[in-house]
């Protein structure tokens, strides 16, 4: 069919084809142990989008750009060091929004804000209380009305996200990562079945990282979540 040169060239092509094919197979085989990782869900954490805090994107353009800047900064540094963002107001030297290490307590937030002002009521806030991401801490002045502190809850600073009011902390918060079934049943709309599902979920998937994770529980919809979100905490 082909001349002698043509035959030789065709054999060369088959040889080269084999060589490339073997190369491809070796590369695949060398990594064979990693096959199926993505669908097995083992790489989920690395592959999933990075989560950040609540950002209202319906804000004005200027606000939006500043939020984006904060957000971008966090995203890039997130891999190196986990931080919480908190809002400090009241009788402190430098009120404002601060980044503090994850797991910090109220006294660290106070240090970040430059400490008390002379008029501050130093006993009004429990400086040993644990913080949580997105918290708003108000340090009142002497004589100012003070929202009641919760002595026992580990994460009970005067804090909240998504428009929580400070007065909501007057009730004891239930830690959904540690609470017993009976405690969970105290929440509005949570019966024995839902309480058990909340416990089952944390035992199967690990600790709840945020209150919104309750929405993953069958039986907790947006309305029920809104009813319980200010009564629970996820502090670990």
């Amino acid at each position, binding site marked *: 069919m082909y001349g002698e040169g043509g035959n030789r060239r065709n054999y060369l092509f088959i040889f080269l084809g084999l060589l490339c094919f073997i190369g491809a197979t070796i590369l695949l085989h060398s990594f064979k142990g990693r096959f199926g990782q993505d669908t097995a869900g083992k790489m989920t954490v690395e*592959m999933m*989008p990075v989560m*950040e805090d609540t950002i209202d994107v319906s804000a004005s353009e200027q606000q939006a750009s500043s939020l984006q800047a904060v957000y971008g900064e966090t995203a890039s540094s997130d891999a190196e060091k986990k931080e919480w963002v908190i809002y400090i107001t009241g009788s402190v030297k430098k009120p404002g929004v601060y980044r503090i290490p994850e797991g910090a307590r109220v006294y660290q937030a106070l240090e970040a804000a430059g400490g008390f002002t002379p008029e501050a009521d130093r006993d009004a806030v429990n400086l040993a209380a644990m913080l949580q991401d997105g918290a708003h801490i108000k340090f009142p002045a002497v004589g100012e009305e003070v929202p009641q502190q919760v002595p026992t809850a580990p994460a009970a600073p005067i804090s909240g996200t998504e428009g929580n009011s400070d007065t909501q902390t007057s009730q004891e918060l239930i830690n959904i990562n540690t609470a017993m079934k009976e405690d969970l049943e105290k929440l509005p709309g949570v019966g024995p079945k839902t309480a058990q599902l909340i416990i089952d979920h944390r035992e199967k998937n690990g600790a709840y990282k945020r209150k919104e994770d309750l*929405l*993953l529980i069958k039986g907790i919809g*947006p309305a029920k979540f809104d009813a319980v979100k200010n009564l629970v905490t996820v502090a670990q």
Partner: protein
Amino acid sequence: MRNKRNGPLSYAPAFAALLGISFSLLAYSSGHSLLISVMISVLTVSSWIFFGTSDPTEGWGTEFIFVIIVTAAVSLSLNLRMSCEPAVPSTIRSEGKVLLNRAWGRRRALLISTSYGKMAAYMHRSSAPAEGSGVRVRAALFDFRRADAGGGFDEYLFWRSKGAVKRMIPLELEVTSPPAGIHKWRNFLETKIEDGLPDLMSGYMLALTLGIRDKKLTERHREAGTVHLLAVSGFHVGILAAMAGFFLKRGKIKILTISVLIWSYLALAGFPPGGIRAGIMLQVYLLGLFLGKPSRPFNSVSVAGIIMLICDPWTFHDIGWRLSMLAALSVCASVGIARQNWAGALLGSAAVWFVTAPVIASAFGEVPVVGLMINIAAIPLFTVIFPLVFFFSLPAFFGLPLSHEIASMCEYLLESWDILSGKLVELMPLSVVSTLPLAAFASFIFFASALYASGATLKKIPLPALMFSLLVLLFA
């Protein structure tokens, strides 16, 4: 040119590139590094070209290098884009638009565009806003669920291939504007079709025009192995183009009119992957006609596949795209065989069934064997039935006299087909499940027909077809 079967670079260079890109995407999504994945793409495309080439023409080397560079560059680019996961907040407030609203068991699945990208949501039927509605939403975002180690439905890959970056649970959702534009038309037509036509006609018209599948009709076609007829794809686009071509005069205006018609139809159908693939393929073919250089269908399908991947690399994980590409490539490859041997036409239909069977079986559990037989009759039959359904539904649509009688006639025709295919299913109630021998056989058939369509000589087909089949099975 046909007599001189000198290999992939002369016949279908785009398929060689698509093959390399696909292997690269498979490797990367299986956990290989970026560099290794690109190397795999280069080696597989080189191997394919070397195996298929018999008598290289002048300038072969330059073409070879060009294809390799393009394959490597596209593979690198696509894998890089897939590796960049978007960073999103855990809860959002945003204005957006409902891009998709489809049945999802008892609920509805929604794709909503927000300022942070597209989000998927599952909602109760009564509270799900209509497609095209403007919405203001406050929602918590969650990761998609991955498939179990043993396989099964992968929510992550499914929604990423639809463009969604996260699953959201709306805490507040307010409709700010009613459906507008093409969505308004889609909703209007859906209501009009559902209200004005009998059951079967309504089901077929919804599938044919809007890409919406009726649950009962889909189930019947699934049992008969003809569910692909309900998915807007090259079959439907081809019928529309053929009808337009029949009524229009020759010339460049005809090419332009067909192009506008096809893309308008696809927009109305909600841009399904199979339809887009067919649209691009047809556009490549029409462009060739426009320039006086008609391209080979097999190569045009491959070009369409690459363009779709470049537009959105996650399309690779869309089962609709995979089935559409496999079927279209198999059909185009068998067209070449059928020209030399009319038995090839039947073989082509069987080849499409075998090639797509393992993919369907792995996704849906099983494939009815009767589909192998029914499709041989169903495909030419529905080439006539679909235009009939369309024209017979027009009187009812415009409220003309005798519209009910005309629609009833068509309904009888569809019922007859329904009964006939039902009887055939009863006669042959066998199904195949996803097994290694089936996958191996399907891969072999696919690669053998692809090698033939790529210009390899017959004696050069068996060995590489076998080897590439084994390579595919490595990923399975």
